[in-house]
């Protein structure tokens, strides 16, 4: 029956999860999950993505709040930097004791 309304079904929104590892310097995207609200998302992330001792900090953000670049724009956005080798600081010797370059 085409005129039948689908039953109302509350689906939890999708969240993207970012975790900072013990020895990690920055939060890294690890996956996504569903949760009813922000706090539940943090707890779900803790349960799903840090249960093997992976993390010390969690960020969650609703997936629909993320603005992403479009694959169609790939060339104008990223191709121009492909041949600018002089933008890399490769002409300097980096001392051995300078970390995180």
């Amino acid at each position, binding site marked *: 029956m085409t005129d039948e309304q689908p039953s109302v079904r509350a689906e939890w929104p999708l969240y993207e999860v970012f975790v900072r*590892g*013990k*020895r990690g310097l920055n939060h890294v995207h690890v996956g996504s999950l569903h949760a009813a609200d922000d*706090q539940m998302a943090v*707890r779900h992330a803790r349960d799903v993505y840090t249960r093997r*001792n992976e993390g010390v900090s969690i960020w969650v953000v609703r997936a629909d709040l993320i603005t992403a670049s479009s694959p169609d724009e790939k060339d104008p956005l990223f191709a121009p930097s492909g041949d600018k080798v002089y933008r890399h600081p490769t002409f300097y010797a980096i001392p051995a004791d300078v970390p995180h370059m």
Partner: protein
Amino acid sequence: MPDTTHGSHPAPDPNAEHGSIFDGLLGSDASQWAFGTDFEDPLAGVDTTIPDGVAPADLAAYCLMLADDALVASHRLSEWCSRAPDLEEDIALANIALDLLGQARLLLARAAAADPAVTPALPEGSPVPPEDALAFFREQEAFRNVRLVEVPNGDFAHTVVRLLLFATARLALLERLAHSRDHVLAAVAAKGVKEVTYHRDYAGRWFLTLARGTEESRRRLLAALQELWPLYPEMTATHDVEARVAAAGVGVDPATAADEVDVVLEQVFAMSGVERPQGAPLAGVRGRTGRDGLHTEALSRMLAEMQVVARAHPLGRW
């Protein structure tokens, strides 16, 4: 920019284009399968001698009480595996079950160390360690858990209510037990406090959510609370063994934590707009309850399933 942060890692994930959260966590042993490292042995450096001033049989019985609460609660939670309302809750419940199983294991081992007589006899040459013998080869009369943890699972609301009552009382107990004269119990309690704090938080949030959710979720929550409330007083009642180990500074008399547990529950009830239930405590039989080995028939069925494989292979290696 040259990526020197990832270059020194011994075992980077070859499939990860941009590096992953797991990079570098494998340590120097690339054959190790687990991602996490730096696991801590909760008993590292802990003095394992049995403290004086407490009867070994009492200490063992007390450890069994704490252990069996965790073991049976853990098994009921693990029965949710693959059956929870959604994937995230499935993993959350399994995590909680594993936390409790870890507590049970340490406590059962402590019981066996305190009084080897509590460990069931096994055939000559059996490789089964004492904590497994206690978990899988004891009859239900030897289990000293409260009856709250053994009654069969109902719906998700039932599990939320049970976990709230259990975790609230256990947390108050473990916080006090962290000051035990028995260094092993103190270490197990200190580890458990962090775990059970999360369990209580998890259950409390779901209690509030279900109570303030839909008409149906509230109806189910109230029904579960009504059903489980008569089993709650056993959590804070004092058994003779508990009184003796508490007097020796080794254990905790749960009655001393009863007021604090009540205050926490009242807060959750108030926030959730739920009235404190009125039902009378579930009676024992001639004064005997779960702590004395007097259980509901549900425990024997649960143990039959939990123990059947181990019992069929007492000489098995796992």
